[in-house]
């Protein structure tokens, strides 16, 4: 292609691109004028005047919308980080069980992966909430010496309380994601040649030690990219919190939109919140990836 033609093509594509953005901005302005609301964020400092069941930091209904949103962001972060850890742990166990030599364990984990992947996450969340926790009796269904209480209010573990909404979301997200992580782990393990297994086995090295010292280090470069995308999915899926009444950033945004009608501003805030959160996850995983590759520089 000649340089002139190339320039012309790029110019044309740019016009279409900026044209589309222009149309969107125009629509936005027209809609804002129609609703009688200017594009404005000053309402953020007004009192939210709604209560939040869960708040890791002090919060009352007289606090600002901005503070309520921040609490929501913290609630999201709390459930995402804890699900991420639990899902990775479960997924690794199941992934290894699936590839291992024990045929019964392999069958069970294959069944687990199939059932979890073939049903909607929303359904699973509802299951954990309504069947798992609300199905329990209201006062101390299981109680062990005041240290561990489980009831329809949630779980109390030596002073720390976890609401049934948080737990339903934690279990739902972790178990759902663990099935996908298990497949990522399995793919990584299968990427290591059979000869590596035979080599460590022939040296009398136990399965556990061989997996940790020989197989996993070689499987990690194949695992990390898949793991990252599962983590990002988990973060985005956490917005289903609204279904079980957990006050995450999305649920609080929803309440604020209902109260103030500031849908566009709220969605921009939501967009930026998730962009920030997922950039955080992506960058953290990128750093881990680089550390692994650096420690494995063979030549």
């Amino acid at each position, binding site marked *: 292609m000649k340089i002139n033609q190339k320039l012309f093509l790029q110019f044309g594509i740019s016009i279409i691109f900026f044209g589309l953005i222009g149309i969107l901005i125009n629509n936005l302005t027209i809609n804002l004028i129609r609703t009688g609301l200017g594009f404005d964020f000053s309402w953020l400092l007004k009192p939210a005047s709604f209560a939040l069941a869960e708040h890791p930091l002090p919060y009352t209904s007289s606090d600002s919308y901005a503070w309520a949103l921040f609490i929501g962001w913290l609630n999201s972060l709390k459930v995402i980080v804890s699900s991420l850890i639990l899902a990775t742990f479960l997924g690794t166990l199941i992934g290894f069980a699936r590839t291992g030599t024990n045929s019964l364990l392999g069958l069970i984990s294959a069944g687990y992966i199939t059932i979890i992947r073939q049903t909607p996450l929303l359904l699973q969340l509802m299951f954990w909430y309504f069947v798992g926790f609300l199905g329990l009796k209201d006062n101390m269904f299981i109680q062990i010496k005041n240290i561990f209480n489980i009831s329809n209010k949630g779980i109390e573990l030596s002073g720390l309380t976890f609401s049934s909404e948080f737990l339903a979301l934690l279990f739902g997200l972790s178990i759902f994601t663990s099935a996908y992580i298990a497949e990522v782990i399995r793919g990584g393990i299968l990427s290591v*040649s059979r000869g590596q297994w*035979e080599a460590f086995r022939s*040296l009398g090295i136990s399965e556990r030690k061989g997996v940790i*010292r020989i197989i996993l280090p*070689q499987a990690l470069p194949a695992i990390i990219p898949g793991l990252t995308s599962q983590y990002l999915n988990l973060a985005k899926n956490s917005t289903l919190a609204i279904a079980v009444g957990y006050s995450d950033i999305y649920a609080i945004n929803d309440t604020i939109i209902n109260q103030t009608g500031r849908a566009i501003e709220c969605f921009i805030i939501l967009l930026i919140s998730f962009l920030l959160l997922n950039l955080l996850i992506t960058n953290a995983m990128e750093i881990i990836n680089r550390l692994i590759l650096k420690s494995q520089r*063979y*030549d």
Partner: protein
Amino acid sequence: MKPIVVAKNLTKSYTKGLRALDNVSLTVNQGKVLVVMGPSGSGKSTLIRTFNGLENFDRGELNILGIKVDSTHDERKIQKIRRRVGMVFQQFNLFPHLSILENITLAPVHVQKRRQADAEEYAMYLLNQMGIDSHAKKYPSQLSGGEQQRVAIARALALKPELLLFDEPTSALDPERINEVLDAMRRLARQGMTMVVVTHEIGFAKDVSDQVLFMDSGKVIETSPPNIFFSNAKHERSRKFLNQLDKQ
């Protein structure tokens, strides 16, 4: 003479009724070298892999260094055998993320609980024997195939095994690299190491082996001393195979 490997009627079938091993019986005494030959798919690799439990079998009995195993594949017994039997593979199977020294010291430190410093000292001695001690700090991918295979031999020797298994150790090497590996194996044989070697190297088999075992379709066709096998094989199938090897 002390028997190191005794196999009795080893049989292994695949699902379609094909036999990988069909009533294989053999004995290898201490300090002897058995060379296993046969066309590809004849069961030679499967056979030596049963010796250290990398392959299971359906019927028969195996006695390795006095440890008896049968088709139940007792993990504890197999683990005991693996600590006393070394193996060298066609594709070397070195651990690519570990240095040459770490490749060799891993099993002595983690399986035999030897001190790191002692394991390293012995590893350096072995690398010196193999003529590659200058590569100790390098990684496998920085070495040639022949050098990698000599590291693999050193790794197998690090546990001071009483039996060494070689599964086509020179088949993946460039022709000009084959001799450096065969020479290392010749030295081991001279030092009295008991070895079972799956190979197509006629020269090596003639010089070093005490017995040649010829297999086809999972069966032992004949077992003869090399001077008889290569000049006057008893069996028609063996002669046909040797003719084909000569043409190559």
